[in-house]
């Protein structure tokens, strides 16, 4: 790095937010260093996951050219689970390689690609650089401390993820509250590409995404997920942290995942596969109402560090919001490059452009989601009711009688036909 010389920007964290930001800045000729605590970009990062591509076309089209996507998602399912049975709704849509709507990614590979792209534009992406502290001068942030060494810059971009120690240090987040986080746990299972294509009924390079709701989380707010990668499967659960607090029994995440994998509707999909990695990461799930201030002069929060994640039950989006916020922060800094990007006006510029973008708009639109999704009835009452109703429609008992449709529906109505249930359902539909 340019010894002693002040950089335009230091970005903390080589995740998707930080790297998209650095790429944009460096492409516009600013001097930028990215400090990453892991050995290399992506070494500490974990996602579900799939990246929604449409919202990033304008903001990151160039950066994502040639990205190592695993598979384009062409098959989507929502699965309600109850015991050894389940009900699913599936959408097979006509998106293809040429018109992907979302694609699965593995972060070690994906983040390394982004880092290489940023490097091509002459951003310095440096591993094994844990930022320990902010440098503050004259009422603003003027750089960071890495192992006691000063790295000075006109602005610091905190892209340091869900736990963001920098946001806490800057006083932007007073406390990390359990109710604002989900705990995500994931297993990666190696499986032949041809088996994946056969089992999920997809063509090469195409893939499936499945979201599970019900007893996969033991009735706790959250859900299970399954994504197909090129020659592996990502499978895991996300559970609201404060719900775990409310629960009494002894049951670990590994128990949840093991039972999930053993489900009769899941086991055949992963049969013969070999688990090669087990990881965990937090998901900021507080939504719009838990958003912190997005910075202080000289410090910009982007991505998970700013709590920019959207969870609506059937969609979990963090990576596209992270990348978009990184690019928007970069553009505000570029706008003020001739003056002082550490001034309060530059921060206001970023806040405004983020507020006008899909990032905040979507989060505001779904601001009630965290509250609605914390309702345990969604996981405990409705999946069994739906599964049981359908089961009774298809079962013939030993007396040779099937259940008349009318009776099955009536039975379901007894559980879900109450006012409380109607209210819940209306709320869910509004998500």
């Amino acid at each position, binding site marked *: 790095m340019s010894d002693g010389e002040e950089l335009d920007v230091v970005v903390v964290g080589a995740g998707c937010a930080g790297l998209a930001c650095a790429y944009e800045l460096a492409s516009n000729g600013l001097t930028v260093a990215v400090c990453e605590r892991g*050995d290399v970009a992506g*070494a500490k*990062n974990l996602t579900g996951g799939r990246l929604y591509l449409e919202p990033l076309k304008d903001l990151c089209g160039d950066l994502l050219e040639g990205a190592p996507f695993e598979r384009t998602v062409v098959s989507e399912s929502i699965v309600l689970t109850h015991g050894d049975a389940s009900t699913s709704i599936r959408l097979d849509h006509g998106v293809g390689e040429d018109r992907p709507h979302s694609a699965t990614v*593995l*972060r070690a590979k994906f983040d390394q690609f982004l880092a290489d792209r940023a490097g091509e534009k002459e951003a310095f992406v440096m591993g094994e650089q844990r930022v320990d502290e902010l440098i503050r001068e004259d009422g603003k942030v003027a750089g960071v401390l890495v192992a006691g060494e000063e790295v000075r810059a006109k602005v610091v971009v905190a892209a340091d993820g869900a736990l963001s120690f920098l946001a806490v240090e800057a006083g932007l987040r007073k406390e990390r509250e359990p109710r604002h986080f989900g705990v995500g*746990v994931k297993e990666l299972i190696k499986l032949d590409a041809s088996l994946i294509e056969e089992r999920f009924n997809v063509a090469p390079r195409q893939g499936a995404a499945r979201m599970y709701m019900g007893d996969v989380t033991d009735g706790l707010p959250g859900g299970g997920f399954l994504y197909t990668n090129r020659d592996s499967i990502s499978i895991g659960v996300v559970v609201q*942290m404060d719900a775990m*607090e409310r629960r009494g029994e002894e049951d670990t995440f590994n128990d949840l995942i093991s039972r999930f994998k053993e489900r009769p509707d899941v086991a055949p999909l992963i049969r013969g596969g070999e688990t090669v990695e*087990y990881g965990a*990461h937090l998901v900021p799930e507080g939504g719009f109402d838990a958003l912190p201030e997005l910075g202080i002069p000289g410090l910009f929060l982007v991505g998970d560090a700013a709590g920019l994640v959207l969870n609506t039950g059937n969609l979990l989006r963090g990576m596209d919001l992270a990348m978009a916020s990184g690019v928007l922060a970069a553009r505000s800094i570029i706008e003020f490059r001739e003056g002082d990007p550490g001034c309060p006006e530059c921060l206001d510029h970023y806040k405004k452009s983020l507020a006008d973008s899909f990032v905040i708009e979507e989060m505001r639109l779904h601001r009630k989601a965290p509250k609605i999704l914390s309702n345990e009835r969604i996981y405990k009452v409705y999946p069994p009711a739906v599964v049981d109703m359908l089961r009774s429609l298809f079962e013939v008992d030993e007396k040779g009688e099937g259940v008349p449709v009318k009776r099955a529906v009536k039975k379901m109505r007894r559980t879900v036909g109450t006012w409380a249930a109607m209210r819940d359902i209306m709320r869910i539909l509004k998500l």
Partner: protein
Amino acid sequence: MKVEEKLALNAIKNHDESHIVLDEEACARCETRICIRACPAGLYSVEPATNKVIVDHSGCLECGTCMVICPLDAVTWRYPDPGYGIRYRHG
């Protein structure tokens, strides 16, 4: 598959020194001991002889769950020193 077996699959370089330190006094009066169930890696346990809650930092996935969920603020937690800890090969 036991959680220890899964952890053994991960690429990880453990530091001799723990990056997680517990406030023993708080843990002694803690009623929930929620960390034990919440840690995805199963690294928290009760030492039978002393009934003390202990954490084994080796194998840590660096998720931060224990720090955030602890009701008594008893977990002093930082990222492991550069060069140490988990290294996701897939993520």
